[in-house]
């Protein structure tokens, strides 16, 4: 079997790194611009994410996740850590230098997730509160404290819904049909 792009990168193939940037620059840019405080910040973040990818590609396992998912994970971690180090959350609307939206691009769907929409379908099977917390946390980038304010839930409850929701989502993505919302509580200890 031919090595994947990330496996070639892990082996030190610089041309694979170039291909990876061509293929996934839009994805990484899309993740970065949702969190970065301005365009320069987003551009720097994209470069740092690819440098990080060069160093972490050896951890990619094609049997566990698609390349796009793995790259999104690396990008998310980088942006979350950056926000945390800054100790503040962005308010891009106030800064005026919002990374530009140059419009969606035409892509070959095969370049991204193997099964587009799979996670969103799984999300729809979670309990309402879990779904709400994950949507605010992942789609809106809200912190647990912000979600507590937005929903009126106690912080501990938000964290609990986040944990149980993510575990249930993981199990559903792994094809465990028993991980519907009602099974989460009991399943957690055995995760």
């Amino acid at each position, binding site marked *: 079997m031919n090595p994947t792009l990330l496996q070639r990168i892990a082996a*030190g193939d*610089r041309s694979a*790194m*170039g291909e990876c*940037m061509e293929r996934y*620059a*839009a*994805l990484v*840019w899309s*993740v970065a611009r949702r969190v970065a405080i*301005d365009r*320069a*910040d987003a*551009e*720097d973040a*994209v*470069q*740092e994410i*690819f*440098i990080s990818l*060069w*160093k972490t590609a050896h*951890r990619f396992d094609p049997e*566990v*996740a698609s390349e796009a*998912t*793995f790259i*999104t*994970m690396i990008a*998310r*971690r980088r942006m*979350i*850590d950056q926000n*945390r180090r800054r100790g503040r959350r962005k308010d891009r609307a106030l800064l005026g230098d919002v990374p530009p939206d*140059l*419009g*969606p*691009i035409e892509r070959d769907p095969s370049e*991204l*997730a193997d099964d*587009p929409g*799979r*996670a969103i379908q799984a*999300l729809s099977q979670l309990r309402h509160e879990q779904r709400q917390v*994950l949507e605010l*946390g*992942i789609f809106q980038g809200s*912190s*647990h404290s912000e979600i507590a304010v937005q929903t009126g839930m106690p912080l501990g409850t938000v*964290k609990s819904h*986040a*944990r149980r929701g*993510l*575990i249930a*989502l*993981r199990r559903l*993505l792994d094809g465990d049909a028993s991980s519907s919302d009602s099974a989460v509580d009991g399943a*957690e*200890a055995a*995760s």
Partner: protein
Amino acid sequence: MSALPRREKTLQLLADRALEGLEPLKGAELESLLAEEPDLDPDALDLAAAELELDHLEREGLAQPPQELLQRLRTLPALLPAQSTTLRIVPRSPESGPASSVSLSWLTASGWITAAALVLCWLLFLAPRSGPSLETLYEQLRSHQNTLSVSWQDQKSGDLVWHNERQEGYMRLVGLERNDPKVSQYQLWIFDENQLEATPIDGGVFDVTGTEVIVPIHAKLRVKKPYLFAITIEQPGGVPRSAREKIVQIAQVPKGP
């Protein structure tokens, strides 16, 4: 602590990390807990969150990156350190650096005049100076207003300070392998927005003589807008243009507001 609360705690920290990151102390706690839970995949919840965000982004439509960014990305592969590069931490030893390794065995044959000239050179250029040490100069410049300070790529390997108006800078290098100056030397390259990417500014040739060293930067051209510093291994004496086959460190300058 019983098994159940420990696992629950581990999963809570994994979920916290996946959604909003962890403070260093919590991160260390998670590492410790994961060591006791070898059956848990530490990336499982991060990957679930990532797949959900990926689906969401695809549904919204991916954004087109700016052309300038794509151009900068195209230069990145050549600047990345080799995957096999490992920065070995060399224990400190009392050996001195290259300056004191000059052999004086041939002096007898060269006569007193040569000896006197060498002694004078040593006094002028090689003898310990009474002025501030490199460490002091580095610290002074670092604390100066308008000094650019950037970490090397892995952050544990030191940093670099550069002052544009003064055209003065120092590298702090930690754990970079000692070189044999007869075989190879390190060379700094300064990538400046006013220079072509193919011809970065030569920042000077240097040797690494200990676990942690401070090295002054000797830019051969005026540095105006540096955006990246890179250290390569080159032949003794350095090269006018690097093939960039052995890049051991890079430090990227964050773009200003």
